[in-house]
């Protein structure tokens, strides 16, 4: 009985605090929660409160510590993943997994290159120099020049910016769309669920490259439109996964408790369901980023994506393939860049999946 009231109190408190982030169980918030709880305890001179805060503190900060089971509040396994220890465990598992560590280093390098591109390029990536057309790699031009005499290394470095943007922005947008629709679909059920899931079925029936091509046909070929196309093409699988998780989470006691004290439906989705979907979403995110980068490169390669003179890697390969046999460096080198970035993300994604995803754990 005490356990239950304590549990309800915790949830009531959570919904009272307006400043919850999706990762709302962090240390800072815990401190804040405890201070509020302490003042409340002082006000109401509630004897139990301080004891409760102690037990909840110890159960949260050290999940491995063995406590007498009678004092331990009923916490669900999913609830624990949003714990402080979750991020530690995450980084620890990346650190232990050598492949993931290598991937993390490569991705950090890639992000740094993209951020500082204007300061590290040896030449202007757009500067046409017809006297140096298709120069073989030499000291001034480390990997040569293309058919307009532009320095390929500089273009690849600038291309990192495009790939980074393409990798992050549309992926986040489509994850957001998929997560929202998936949670709504799973939580509300009924007709809403039916409509959303049929829509997801239809979207997933298309091969994503073809669907993106069709969207590009409708919108016209440009880099900005790739953002839109990739944002709206890939939400289907995310929504399926999130829906499945929502279905299982919504039966948990803490959701029932929140509902019973009258917390609104969208508030429950945001505060209780979403944080518990985060681990899967992280895995999905790291696995979707390389896919998006690859899609952009493919679309640009096919000529329905970025348009010249944008230094998109896919476009560079596409334009360079005409000179493949005389000056192979033009087409081959941007591909190495794509390959390295994609494999780096895949390394991380693989490591994270092994560490986090309950479905693929052996």
């Amino acid at each position, binding site marked *: 009985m005490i356990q239950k009231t304590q549990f309800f109190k915790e949830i009531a408190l959570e919904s009272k605090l307006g400043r919850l982030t999706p990762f709302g169980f962090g240390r800072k918030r815990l401190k804040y929660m405890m201070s509020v709880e302490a003042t409340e305890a002082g006000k109401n001179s509630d004897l139990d409160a301080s004891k409760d805060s102690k037990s909840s503190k110890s159960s949260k900060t050290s999940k491995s510590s063995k406590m007498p089971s009678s004092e331990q509040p009923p916490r669900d396994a999913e609830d624990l993943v949003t714990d402080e220890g979750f991020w530690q465990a995450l980084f620890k598992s990346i650190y232990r997994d050598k492949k993931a560590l290598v991937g993390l280093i490569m991705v950090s390098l890639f992000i740094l290159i993209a951020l500082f591109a204007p300061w590290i390029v040896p030449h202007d990536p757009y500067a046409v120099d017809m006297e140096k057309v298709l120069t073989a790699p030499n000291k001034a031009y480390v990997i040569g020049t293309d058919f307009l005499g532009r320095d390929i290394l500089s273009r690849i470095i600038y291309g990192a910016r495009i790939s980074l943007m393409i990798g992050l922005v549309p992926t986040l947008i489509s994850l957001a769309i998929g997560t929202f629709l998936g949670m709504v679909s799973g939580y509300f059920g009924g007709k809403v669920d039916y409509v959303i899931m049929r829509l997801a079925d239809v979207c997933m029936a298309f091969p994503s490259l073809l669907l993106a091509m069709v969207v590009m046909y409708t919108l016209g070929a440009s880099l900005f439109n790739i953002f839109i196309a990739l944002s709206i093409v890939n939400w289907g699988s995310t929504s399926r996964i999130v829906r499945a998780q929502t279905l299982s989470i919504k039966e948990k006691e803490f959701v029932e408790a929140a509902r019973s004290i009258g917390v609104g439906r969208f508030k429950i989705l945001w505060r209780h369901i979403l944080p518990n979907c985060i681990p899967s979403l992280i895995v999905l995110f790291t696995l979707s980023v390389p896919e998006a980068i690859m899609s952009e490169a493919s679309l640009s390669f096919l000529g329905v994506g970025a348009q010249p003179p944008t230094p998109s890697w896919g476009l560079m390969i596409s334009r360079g393939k005409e000179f*493949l*046999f005389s000056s192979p460096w033009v087409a081959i080198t941007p*591909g190495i860049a794509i390959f390295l970035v994609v494999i780096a993300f895949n390394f991380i994604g693989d490591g994270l999946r092994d560490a986090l995803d309950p479905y693929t754990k052996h």
Partner: protein
Amino acid sequence: MKYIVKRLLGTIPIVLGVSLLLYIMLNIVPGDPVALMMGEHVNADTIERVRARMHLDDPLLVRFSKYVLDALKGDLGYSYKLKREVSTLIWQAFPNTAILAVAGAMVSWIIGIPAGVISAVRKNSAVDYGVMTFALIGVSMPVFWSGLLFQYFFGLKLKWLPISGFDGLNIKYIIMPAIVLGWSSAATIARLTRSSLLEVMSADYIRTAREKGLLRYQVVMRHALKNAFLPVLTVMTIQIASLLSGAVITETIFGIPGIGRIAVSAIQTRDMPLLQGSVMFTTILIILGNLVADILYGFLDPRIKYN
């Protein structure tokens, strides 16, 4: 049997939804298709007449239902640019894509399944790590880039194979595109074979077989593989999707006159009916592939009961 009928009926709304979505997306494009089709020097009268003949002024849904009814009769419209029946063009291109896809699938099985079995049997050994890293490399290589690498090394430098082109069933022209296409699927299959074989290997009946004194490879070959293949089989049919969309790029690189290349050229020339027909055809093919996979899966694994 009841399940099959139900599953078949369930596919119909998806096919309809797919075609509706496609139709809407392709028909809200700004620009007059008639003007696009006929060039610049036509008078307004002619445009008006052609519009009426093509029913372009009807509401979207009316046109859509007409399109679906025509499509059921095998009429997918008329290409703006090539001035030929879309269905004829697709039927001419389809065998080429099919040859490529089947060859690609075979490559992926020949590489993927043995690689997966080896790394599962030698779990956590250097071989296992090697194979799995190799698989990850395979997934991470852009198809269009590995295609160019193959062309450069095997076509130009070693002169083993023709650089591009297509000649029916002439194996010389198929090898390179098939390897390029099958490569990434091979990686997926290897990983899946490995994980599903590992799962089966921990089952009780495998332990029994081992304790009866059977050799390790006998157990793997006779007892484990049969059951480990089920999930792999599903992936093989899901593969149809990745093979067909990968074919878009492979066909473009190697100059194979298949459906993928039709779609790409249709986008470049803004030939809407042709694009619509080719994408619709490919997507429905994939949906049917998944349907067959589901049904087959039920037949092969008696533990699965559909309600």
